[in-house]
């Protein structure tokens, strides 16, 4: 069993009173492998959050199937197993913390699962260490920064020992520093603990280090490939109102302006600098290397 999440022709629609049924997901086929870091991109209303809610049985498919570790999410008896296997972190860090003390909040999930007290204690300490918030275990959540609160929310999920964590725009309400904290935390969880990560976002920069980028548009999978491959298709992304990382955009525009010899699919600032300075060197401007 190498796929943690599998969807087969997943459809979801809801009835709106004026316009009849509205289709949000229109036949999604997606496999997410164990240990993979998948970024799901899509503009507002593309159905990416709806898709995420299917991964832990918060929503059930109107058509097709969604399997989590081989369990059908529509199986009512398996619901809590599914939610324990796929944990979910939401956008607003304030609205998902339940308790007045950090460690008690982290304990909330395992408490619901009926884990014995000593075991909960152990898990809570481990989870808080994994997100680097152990020193704050006795603090009140409302005194922490947004990034810290979001890390507590992640710890609350880790304490349930999930195989996979789905994060639904976890950085949308954070400042740049909080975003950086959260993104590096989830990368560490993926690399060190082997937890599968599904990161739903509309910040392109957060997706460049993912193993795979899935672009959702209008309830369908538009692209599903490595970041480099996805972001080399600038025109296709623009067509669905998605942007590309800044470095990619700069190279793309230079190419459009007729500059020859630039590779496609440049992702990070460092790559961009290197590509440009190489280009300048080839064209005979040796002084153009960055000074330090």
């Amino acid at each position: 069993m190498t796929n943690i999440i599998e969807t087969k022709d997943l459809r979801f629609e809801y009835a709106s009173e004026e316009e009849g049924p509205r289709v949000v997901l229109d036949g999604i086929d997606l496999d997410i492998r164990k240990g993979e870091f998948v970024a799901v991109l899509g503009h507002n209303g593309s159905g990416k959050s709806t898709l995420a809610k299917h991964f832990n049985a918060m929503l059930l498919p109107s058509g097709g199937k969604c399997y989590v570790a081989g369990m059908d999410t529509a199986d009512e008896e398996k619901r809590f197993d599914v939610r324990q296997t796929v944990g979910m972190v939401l956008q607003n860090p304030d609205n998902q913390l339940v308790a007045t003390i950090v460690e008690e909040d982290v304990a909330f999930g395992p408490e619901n699962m009926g884990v014995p007290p000593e075991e909960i204690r152990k898990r809570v300490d481990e989870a808080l260490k994994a997100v680097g918030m152990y020193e704050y275990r006795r603090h009140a959540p409302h005194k922490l920064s947004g990034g810290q609160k979001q890390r507590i929310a992640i710890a609350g999920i880790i304490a349930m020992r999930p195989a996979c964590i789905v994060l639904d725009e976890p950085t949308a309400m954070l400042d740049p520093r909080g975003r950086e904290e959260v993104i590096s935390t989830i990368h560490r969880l993926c690399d060190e603990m082997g937890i599968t990560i599904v990161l739903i976002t509309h910040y392109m920069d957060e997706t460049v280090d993912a193993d795979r980028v899935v672009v959702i548009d209008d309830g369908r999978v538009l692209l599903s490939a490595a970041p480099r491959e996805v972001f080399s298709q600038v025109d296709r992304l623009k067509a669905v109102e998605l942007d590309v990382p800044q470095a990619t955009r700069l190279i793309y525009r230079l190419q459009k302006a007729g500059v020859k010899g630039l590779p496609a699919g440049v992702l990070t600032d460092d790559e961009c600098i290197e590509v440009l300075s190489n280009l300048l060197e080839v064209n005979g401007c040796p002084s153009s290397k960055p000074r330090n």
Partner: protein
Amino acid sequence: MIRDITFGQFFPAKSVVHALDPRTKLILVVAYIVLVFIGNNFLCLGLAAAFLILATALSKVPPKLMLRSTRPILFVIAFTAILNLLYIKGDVLLFEWGFVQIYDKGVFTAVFMAIRIILAVLGSSLLTYTTSPTDLTDGLERLMSPLKVLHLPVHEFALMMTIALRFIPTLIEETDKIMSAQKARGADLETGGLVKRVKALVPILIPLFVSSFRRAFDLATAMECRCYHGGEGRTRMKKLQMHGRDAWAFGITALVLGGIIAASILLPPVF
């Protein structure tokens, strides 16, 4: 400033009283209030007062702080005292002016009731000064858990308390933001008569309400994601444990209670 707000009146310190199990403290406070109202002469009240002074000294809560907790109920005390003065008739008439007649028994009762109320309030303040709201909720939930047999939603109630405590600072912060936002749009919250000021609150309360509902919706989703399904089959990380000091506290209180019952049987009542 608004982030540092504390609720209730928890006074953090390291003391024997703070370290007592919240359940012990809850039971003892109830017992204490009962014994204050059983005692029917001044010796009983003296014993109760001595007990309270001992407990306060052990708790390291400054006496000034303790006394301050009676301030909100001074009016109630004064009101009861005046009613007692005016309406209790006795044998010796001390003072007469028109329809006002004050008897010796009235004076005694007034003083006695006032002391009773003050002692009861001080006793419960000691509980809230030495127990954090979280511990208090925990203690209450566990003490009440036998009532689950009667289908009382004990767990739900405790969870509601916890969530309320968790969200009070968040909502205060939000109110502050909304007020600033409305002021920036020219809202006048500080001048005008009562009606005008109440009306000025509407544009603050409505967004606050709307956002509270949104938060509640989010919170419910987050709780479901974390496998919340009511109190059934739920375990707790924190185990409350009684220690030797709890036994001591029970023992001492039992002695005082015995003393007060004995004194109220043996000595003549005040009224």
